[in-house]
């Protein structure tokens, strides 16, 4: 430890800590721009100057950049010294020479780090007389606005985009006082992490384009802590609303998960909440087949009538909350409850959970993924299915650069030095997938095969580790690297729908354990709450549930479009048969329109609930705003039906009650709601609620004056620790699960997050939230079957008319709800297939042309991928409303009428 003095007060930190970071960790104010807690220092902006004294006698000291200095024991510095303050004001004066004076009409105003730092340094008078430089801006696609005139040239954007996230199409151009940050030409930013530029940019150069359209200030947003529903990682977010519209999502720091960054599916995928496809009213289908709405009671009565049938089936959903799934299960009984996974997904997900819970492997947090020294990705295109994990893997490959820097005496925070010294040296990453991936560029080696082939390769790696001798150099080099690793990590997932891929990956992990290694194993699930549905109960298979409905059983379908889960014909048989259906959902779907009763379900932003992520971490998300029209949380609809049926065992009045019951019902799991997050009775200092609104909230505006000139009474929140008003607090030391937004005096931007942390990039003062439901056993459970049959049916080149289909996932479009968020819908490709160039030649199909097949719904754009096995076809799932792909070879033919979808195409879902 080192003791250092700042303006006469002594502090203790680890020796060698970066001085700026150390000062901020003491919660002191020191302006900065180019430094970023996740990206270290480069010394570009010169804003964080302090005076460093040689010893106690030194009165003059020397100006030094805190971000480029190590803390040494006995160090004496001053932030407040006049010379340092003058210099810092000077830096702002230089930066403001060319910065527009348009704060009042700039969308960044009120949460602009530059604005904060300008106020902090006291610069207020303009002495520069020359003209300001101006730029033409670029159209960077539907996500990111670009306003280069505001740029202060801190280089954070390119450092994040290129260095941190591996993006290639955003760069620093020009030189001297004419530095331009953008693309070579207008066009969509390619990286799925581009949205982080909004938060990385210290001013308003890169802005949240959908948010900009709302002309809303941060201080006028009503926010709550939320959890991203986009994939199985469960990144923490701040979700913000105004006037009944979910305006935007920002990253909410979680020490073990997303830290400072989320992906664009998460950031821009939530506008489905405001979509025109939203189901807003309870409706009953009349005899003529037309829905009648307007009478909630009539809808409930009809639902009750349907549920009085002697045979009732409930189909849950991996995208619905734990509470909704549990309420349905209680209502229909475990033997009549289907978890809502497709049958292929159910098998692979059950296997995943069995391995996670019984395998005895460490299940890594995202932070632990970043710490791995050898990573092997097996059968999962993780950049598309769980992008935040891919970003963490990218960081893991940098660990060797820190070791190299350490031995070269380069401070680890000196970003450019660490990167420059390591050059292209990386930790080994191996990728075995069915198609090319966005991690291939940093992989030591890749291999491409269909899931059978991947299984074979993985089982050979396991064999090689156990002493077998294989010839495949990929197999031998992976085995060698894993055996040499200190923190080996295996990453796989369920997206190929092949349990053998998981089994073979587990076999590698067990082989490593036998060699005294402690492998970590990460299995990405398919949706936000997939793992919750598994731990709930076994339940019916989807096909048996569909058969029962087809045979006349009544059904409750919870937030689930069954056409995405099963083949269309079997869904048609069920929904068009005699069985009557009550469907609850957030957005319209093919399933919903075939129901007899429709009940509008609250989105995640309109209710409080729980999602369980890939680590089985149960995380609470809170209601951001009250739903409008007839919309209610699904569990509440189900409670109301239960109560009308006289079923007190399936009826609750507050979400905390249903959450407690759901947790108590989890087999073999001992988790209390309080361990997950604060409950409704939580009060700060015993008396204050957490305020959803900032204390600068504008209050009454003319926005709703056409309805009433009276300011509406703030709703009372009976279910959460939050208030629907400015009344309450956000002190920062409450549980990380109930931080509604990041703000402290003087720090209006998201940079204020350090004031909520015990130390920079450490845990939150009130600790990051959630609880893992399963403690991983230190040894494999005796019941686990470690002897799998990996005999492989070699994918053989099928007859000329057939290609072996396999699923591919696209970060933009494959996920059901985010695909209906208008920015994502604009960003997403149309339905497409990946095929090998040889197959394209056989088909006479070129890239961009269209193909179709009798076995698939709709036409597909041809995308050529050298990595796809000849004789196979990757089908982008979800983009045509279908996720399940045929289990036999399919014949593709060219569709001469095909037109590829263009960005911003009118066919994309209308924006709300």
């Amino acid at each position, binding site marked *: 430890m080192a003791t250092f003095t700042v303006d006469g007060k002594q502090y203790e930190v680890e020796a060698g800590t970066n001085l700026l970071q150390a000062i901020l960790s003491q919660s002191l104010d020191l302006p900065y721009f180019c430094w970023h807690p996740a990206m270290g220092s480069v010394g570009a902006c*010169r804003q964080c100057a302090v005076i460093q004294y040689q010893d106690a006698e030194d009165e003059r000291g020397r*100006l030094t950049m805190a971000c*480029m200095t190590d803390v040494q024991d006995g160090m004496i510095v001053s932030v407040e010294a006049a010379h340092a303050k003058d210099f810092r004001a000077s830096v702002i004066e230089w930066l403001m*020479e060319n910065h527009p004076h348009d704060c009042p009409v700039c969308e960044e105003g009120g949460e602009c780090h530059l604005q904060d730092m300008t106020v902090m340094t006291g610069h207020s008078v303009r002495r520069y007389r020359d003209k300001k430089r101006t730029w033409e801006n670029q159209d960077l696609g539907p996500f990111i606005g670009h306003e280069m005139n505001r740029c202060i040239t801190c280089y954070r954007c390119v450092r994040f985009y290129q260095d941190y996230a591996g993006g290639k199409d955003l760069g620093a151009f020009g030189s001297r006082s004419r530095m331009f940050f953008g693309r070579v030409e207008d066009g969509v930013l390619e990286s799925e992490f581009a949205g982080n530029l909004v938060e990385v940019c210290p001013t308003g150069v890169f802005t949240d384009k959908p948010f900009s359209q709302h002309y809303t200030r941060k201080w006028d947003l009503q926010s709550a802590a939320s959890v991203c529903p986009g994939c199985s990682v469960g990144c923490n977010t701040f979700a913000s609303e105004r006037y009944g519209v979910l305006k935007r999502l920002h990253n909410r720091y979680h020490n073990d998960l997303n830290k400072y960054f989320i992906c664009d599916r998460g950031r821009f995928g939530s506008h489905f909440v405001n979509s025109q496809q939203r189901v807003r009213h309870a409706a009953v289908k009349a005899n003529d087949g037309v829905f009648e709405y307007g009478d909630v009671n009539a809808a409930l009565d009809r639902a009750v009538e349907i549920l009085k049938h002697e045979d009732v089936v409930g189909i849950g959903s991996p995208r619905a909350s734990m509470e909704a799934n549990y309420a349905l299960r209680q209502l229909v009984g475990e033997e009549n409850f289907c978890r809502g996974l497709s049958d292929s997904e159910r098998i692979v997900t059950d296997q995943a959970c069995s391995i996670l819970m019984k395998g005895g492997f460490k299940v890594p947090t995202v932070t632990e993924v970043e710490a791995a020294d050898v990573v092997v990705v097996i059968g999962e295109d993780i950049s598309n299915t769980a992008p935040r994990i891919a970003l963490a893997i990218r960081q893991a490959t940098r660990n060797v650069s820190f070791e190299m820097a350490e031995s*070269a005496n380069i401070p680890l925070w000196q970003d450019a030095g660490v990167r420059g010294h390591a050059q292209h040296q990386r930790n080994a990453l191996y990728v075995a997938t069915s198609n090319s991936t966005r991690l291939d560029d940093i992989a030591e080696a890749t291999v491409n095969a269909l899931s059978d082939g991947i299984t074979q390769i993985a089982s050979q790696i396991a064999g090689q580790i156990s002493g077998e001798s294989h010839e495949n150099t990929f197999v031998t080099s992976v085995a060698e690297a894993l055996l040499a690793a200190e923190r080996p990590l295996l990453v796989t997932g369920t997206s190929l729908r092949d349990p053998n891929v998981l089994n073979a990956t587990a076999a590698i992990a067990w082989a490593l354990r036998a060699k005294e290694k402690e492998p970590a194993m990460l299995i990405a699930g398919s949706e936000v709450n997939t793992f919750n549905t598994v731990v709930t109960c076994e339940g019916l298979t989807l096909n048996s549930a569909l058969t029962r409905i087809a045979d006349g059983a009544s059904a409750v379908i919870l937030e689930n479009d069954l056409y995405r889960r099963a083949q269309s014909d079997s869904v048609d048989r069920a929904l068009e048969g005699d069985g009557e259906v009550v469907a609850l959902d957030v957005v319209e779907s093919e399933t919903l329109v075939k129901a007899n009763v429709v009940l509008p379900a609250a989105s995640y932003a309109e209710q409080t609930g729980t999602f369980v992520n890939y680590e089985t971490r149960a995380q609470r998300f809170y209601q951001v705003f009250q739903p409008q029209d007839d919309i209610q949380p699904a569990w509440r609809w189900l409670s109301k039906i239960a109560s009308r049926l006289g079923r007190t065992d399936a009826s609750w009045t507050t979400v905390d009650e249903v959450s407690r019951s759901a947790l108590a019902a989890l087999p073999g799991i001992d988790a209390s709601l309080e361990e997950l997050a604060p409950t409704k009775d939580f009060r700060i200092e015993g008396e204050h609620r957490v305020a959803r609104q900032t204390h600068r909230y504008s209050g009454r505006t003319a926005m709703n004056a056409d309805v009433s000139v009276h300011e509406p009474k703030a709703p009372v929140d009976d279910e959460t620790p939050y208030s629907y008003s400015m009344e309450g607090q956000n002190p920062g030391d409450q549980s990380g699960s109930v931080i509604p937004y990041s703000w402290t005096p003087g720090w209006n931007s998201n940079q204020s997050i350090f004031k909520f942390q015990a130390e920079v990039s450490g845990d939150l003062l009130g600790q990051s939230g959630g609880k893992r439901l399963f403690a991983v056993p230190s040894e494999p459970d005796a019941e686990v079957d470690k002897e799998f049959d990996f005999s492989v049916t070699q994918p053989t080149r099928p007859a000329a008319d057939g290609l072996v289909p396999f699923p591919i996932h696209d970060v933009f479009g494959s996920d059901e709800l985010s695909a209906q968020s208008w920015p994502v819908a604009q960003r997403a490709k149309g339905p497409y297939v990946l095929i090998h160039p040889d197959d394209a030649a056989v088909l006479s199909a070129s890239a961009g042309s269209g193909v179709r097949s009798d076995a698939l719904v709709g036409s597909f754009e041809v995308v050529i991928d050298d990595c796809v096995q000849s004789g196979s076809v990757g089908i982008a799932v979800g983009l045509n409303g279908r996720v399940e792909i045929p289990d036999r070879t399919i014949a593709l033919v060219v569709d001469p009428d095909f037109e590829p979808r263009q960005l911003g195409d009118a066919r994309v879902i209308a924006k709300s």
Partner: protein
Amino acid sequence: MSLLETKPLTGRVEEVGGPVFLEDYEAGGGYVAAKKAVTQMTPSEVIDEVKDSNLRGRGGAGFPTGTKWGFVPPGPSPDGGVKYLVCNGDEMEPGTFKDRWLISNNPHSLIEGMVIGAYAIGATKAYVFLRGEYFEPKSKLAKAIDEAKAAGYLGEGVFGSDFDLDFRIHSSGGRYICGEETALLNALEGKRAQPRNKPPFPPASGAWGRPTIVNNVETYCNVPSIIQNGADWFRDLGLTEDAGTKIYGVSGRVNNPGLWELPIGTTIREIIDEYAGGMQDGFRLRGLLPGGASTDFLVEEHFDLAMDYGTIQAAGSRMGTGTMILMDDSICPVDMSRNLQHFFAQESCGFCTPCREGLPWVESLLLDIEEGRGQPGDLEILDQNAQYIGAPGNTFCLHATGAIEPLQSALKYFRDDFERHIVEGRCPYRTNGNA
């Protein structure tokens, strides 16, 4: 003493009467030193000899060359990686043209010096980073490299030893900042020409993250004669504390502008009067930048000082490249300062704030003052900017520090001129609005 012993850098060129290629170079004793070093000396003996010679970097900073070489971890790298030897031939300092002359006229002395340097630090790859506009020097150097390769002095098994040296020219894309050694290395790697933070210093982590030495052309050209004639001979060449000869240059309104190799420590007045032929009729010397545009003005009181590193530094400037720019009494100091600041603002790499944003402000203020739009208080703004931009450590590299040196000294020595511009609202050096 022969010309080669008094003028080790230029003597052979004088003898031959033009560019010296391999035959002439060897006839004058060329490559004897390199062969001696590679075949008879250990690397540490070579470094010690260079240290003993007190050779200091001729690029401007004057860092002891042998000491720098000694920072490179000796012997083969434990990881088997390469080390690099780089020659900084970017020479974009205004008023400086000595390296161009050396490369064009005595290219083998550069190659030989680099062979010795590479051997001393164990580098197997050498680059000459050449200013982009140096087409002619490049063709001469390329020819010399071909000759040296054919003779077995470069490539695999230099002089029949087991020492290999891959030797290449890299033509710069053309930015002043590439003369900063770490920006040069970034440019060499194909990256933006932005300086790097130190540490790590290039001898520990330079080109492509490997141990690297970067020296100036003139520095390398001095090395063969040191190995050949010994450190004592080299030290004795200097007139003052510094060792060896120096190529001095003079530009401005003198009768005979040019370059001369003289014992280091020759006085300013001697260089101007004896070699540059004194001022042209009708012009009086008011001040000079002793070592290129990025050095402080020296004035009358300094003209009898010896041109060596320590003396010029004590006078508040730097010897820099040793090539002087003279300001006579017809030149407006404000306009000259503006011109210099225009250059430096334009050549800023754009990385750090004070340099990127401060220099254009300074330039714009100087333009206002020069064109009669100066306002009371402008000099104070200039002073403040000069202080905050110019202090070493306030900016990321020394580009802005160098840029401010002529301005700060102009504000000190020619302050009356600045004040007159503001008070009179015009440039007193202009008649009828023309300079």
